[in-house]
């Protein structure tokens, strides 16, 4: 993280900002992960990630218990909780958010939401890029959750659920670098279109330390811990099976 970044919500005492300590949680994709990070340190004080397709609901709290047991001061020493809010598995998103919001309530501290796409892109963006930076998550059936930013941080594609082809087209002529579980899919399609594109950080989930870093700089008033599904619930109104009735006399 850049030095000297002003942290919103940081406690100030005697004119000097106190350290801010955060618990970060990610269960939105293929990991069950948590870490405790402080804004004055590069590496987390404590972290654990388990590769996991399903079963986050059973694994997460024991994992958080282990992660917290390794830091002095326990939950009382936390200033904030960050959680990935998606896109990702609907159930995974809710496990993380339900846990984070309950921890926030019990510890009486703010909870911030970080999108999985931003967390994937963050390590690339932080290094400074002359290229477009895209993040893609495999959404199956030829689709990805996708977002892209131009050098300097201007948004090229806002986070959305789109076809792999449309994601590739959105990269224009490139050059571009892609991160995320769906980066390979988009890169292959883009190369077929002749775009200069590379991939980096093609992981099944974002690095938990980056979720923490983004959480430390997020504004609790706007980075709400609400699900970011990017896809509506699959449900159709039912009208069938009703037996005809006589018109009601007026």
């Amino acid at each position, binding site marked *: 993280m850049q030095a000297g970044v002003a942290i919103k919500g940081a406690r100030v005492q005697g004119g000097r900002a106190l350290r801010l300590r955060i618990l970060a949680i990610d269960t939105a994709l293929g990991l069950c992960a948590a870490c405790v990070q402080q804004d004055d340190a590069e590496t987390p004080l404590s972290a654990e990630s388990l590769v996991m397709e399903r079963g986050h*609901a*059973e*694994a*997460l*709290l*024991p994992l*958080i*218990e282990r992660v917290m047991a390794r830091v002095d001061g326990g*939950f009382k020493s936390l200033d904030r909780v960050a959680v990935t809010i998606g896109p990702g598995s*609907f*159930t995974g998103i*809710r*496990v993380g*958010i*339900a*846990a*984070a*919001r*309950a*921890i*926030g*309530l*019990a*510890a009486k501290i703010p909870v911030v939401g970080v999108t999985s796409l931003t967390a994937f892109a963050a390590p690339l963006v932080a290094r400074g890029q002359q290229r477009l930076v895209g993040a893609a998550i495999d959404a199956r059936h030829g689709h990805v959750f996708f977002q892209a930013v131009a050098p300097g941080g201007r948004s090229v594609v806002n986070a959305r659920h789109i076809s792999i082809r449309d994601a590739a087209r959105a990269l224009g002529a490139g050059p571009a670098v892609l991160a995320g579980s769906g980066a390979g899919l988009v890169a292959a399609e883009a190369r077929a279109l002749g775009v200069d594109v590379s991939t980096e950080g093609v992981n099944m989930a974002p690095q938990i330390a980056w979720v923490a870093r983004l959480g430390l700089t997020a504004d609790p008033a706007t980075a709400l811990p*609400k*699900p970011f*599904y990017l896809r509506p*619930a*699959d*449900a*159709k*109104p*039912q*009208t069938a*099976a*009703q*037996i*005809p*009735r*006589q018109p*009601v006399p007026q």
Partner: protein
Amino acid sequence: MAKDRRSDYRLFQNNSETTMRDTRPALVTMRILGLETTCDETAAAVVSCDGEGRGHILANEVLSQIAEHAAYGGVVPEIAARAHVESLDLLVARALARAGLDLSDMDGIAAAAGPGLIGGVIVGLTAAKALALVAGKPFIAVNHLEGHALTARLTDSVAFPYLLLLASGGHTQLVCVRGVGDYIRLGTTIDDAIGEAFDKTAKMLGLPYPGGPEVEKEALRGDPERFNLPRPMLRRDVPDFSLSGLKTAVRLEAERIAPLSATDVADLCASFQAAVVDVIVDRSRVALRAFHAAAGNPTALVVAGGVAANQMIRAALQRFAAEAGLRLVTPPPALCTDNAAMIAWAGLERLRLDLTDDLTAPARARWPLDSMRA
């Protein structure tokens, strides 16, 4: 609520001072926070028990999702799960505020871990585990059906053993309740639940969702004898239910006379409800016989679940209970349908027996009551 520190003191039998002042059995006074998210109700409640073991509801917050699901004619699991995660923490905060208590005042945190719609169960279970972990309190994974089964002990201090008829949108069971975690399922439905049969009948007749209360309203002005509908399972010696044949019979009668006039709808509802009432009374009678064989005399007949709100069914069961020399206990409607007070109370009953769970407790879509062990 004024904070009464004295109620925090646990009474220990080996403490001579306490024993001198208080010769009652050493019952621990407790307060439990309970969460319920297994279906289409998001709920949080705080209950306590006093020195005599009697239950008190200190807060009971329920947010119904009926409006969200109405357009779909039934509960849509993904929509339910989405709604739970949006509001559960607010309901917990509200329940604690209403009780005038802090999380640190709780003796345990309970959540319904199933059976139910798994997406919603996961939300409540995860939140409760997190609250318990941060607050350093015991966690109790409660069977939703056990919540229904033990409600009569919260509201009416009913003693074990008792006969329970649990009839809701998702469940229809006759249960011998012998103790906490000690249940014998005497009978169940082999197809639709009773509430489900009400809902499906309402839907085919074009009545709004949820259908139970609508069918009851229509039935009030209908003729229960106009249609000769079947009474499935009548006099079978195992107290099981079957509702789908009855539902089909309603459909066939309705199709035969369609398009339906307002009178037709009312008569169909009345005839359907009359058949259900006959079946319920007959099945309860058979269950009582099975109960005697398994556990002797019940202290009461308890009716729980949303269907218990039906006045015709209540009245019929009242007559049956009187005939059998049994006390009929029907908890108030708000505690018969899904709520968190029953989860908190079941959690309290379990915690009293030191039956707690660890943070790996699974969410369960299916979890038969009689598979539980205390």
